[in-house]
């Protein structure tokens, strides 16, 4: 599957099928710090991602102190 990451924006290929939580573990990303979006739709941690899916791992942590 094609996985889009942000900050900076980049794309990587990950073999599927794979559950969302397994993908995050493989990327070493804490689940509290991201949303996983497949074809524009939020997907839960136990969802199975297919090899043909386009997936975005979107960070949700904002940094400014103001």
């Amino acid at each position: 599957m094609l996985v889009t990451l942000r900050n900076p924006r980049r794309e990587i290929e990950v073999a599927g099928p794979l559950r969302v939580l397994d993908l995050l573990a493989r990327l070493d990303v804490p689940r509290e710090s991201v949303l996983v979006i497949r074809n524009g739709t939020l997907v839960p941690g136990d969802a199975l991602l297919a090899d043909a899916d386009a997936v975005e791992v979107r960070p949700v942590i904002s940094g400014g102190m103001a």
Partner: protein
Amino acid sequence: MEVRRHNAGFCAPHFLKLCRDQVERAIAHHDMLHPGERVLVAVSGGKDSLALWDLLVDLGYQADGLYLGLGIGEYSDESGDHARAFAQGRGLRLIEVDLREQYGYDIPTGARAARRVPCSACGLSKRHLFDAAAVEGGYDAVATGHNLDDEAAVLFGNVLRWHTEYIGRQQPVLPERDGFPRKVKPLVRLSERETAAYCVLKGIDYQVEECPMAAGNRHLGYKEALNLIEERSPGTKAAFYSEFIDKVADRFAVDTAAEQGALGACASCGAPTTGEVCAFCKLVERAGGHGADQPVSLTAKPASRR
């Protein structure tokens, strides 16, 4: 949408209702706003400020947005586009103030000239201009998109260093006083993962890329540390912050009052300050800017667009 601290998963309509309920509850519990009040929303184009604006309008408040053009290159160009698109799509009023056009400086150059870190110069500029615009425009309150993660991270940092004077003033609502408008944080019961999910589900196109000047700051480190704890023990962030507000914050009010000092009017712009000249006017002067002594222009022409 999984919300582990509630040990529950929500379908889209119920998750959106949860967000609305949490904001309504925060507003009522902390007596932030009253029906029909005019609110000035601090809009950055990011997920929190756009979710906040959307929710306040949905709850029936007269909410206008104020966007500051910070001059942080492409990041500012894109964030302005998101703020404008949101306002235009909903027929809402977005006031724009461009630091470079109206005050002759931007955050990168201002921070360097004033020898402040960028987040400090940015926060100072925002606080001053949002306050001044709210007073100038006769708004009942300024609403900011600080969420549960923001508040928990600030509290965490202040506790680690025992900045008791800051701990005492970390409140979800600061009442109007001495020339400052009332300031409210209606998102304090929502995590930033929840505000991001709210935007995705509502189709709100927000600025996802992070401010390049914030990379690596201490605040981000505190958030990451808290998220590691939250991963193992869901609900810890919410308990840390809400129990602090309910049980602890008042105990530090004395430290805050001692630190605040008496307020007078800035000799340059008239804003409330503890010194002769306020920090904003000093920043503008050091940055070689101008116009700090003038009222905020609420009918300003839109900031330059791409």
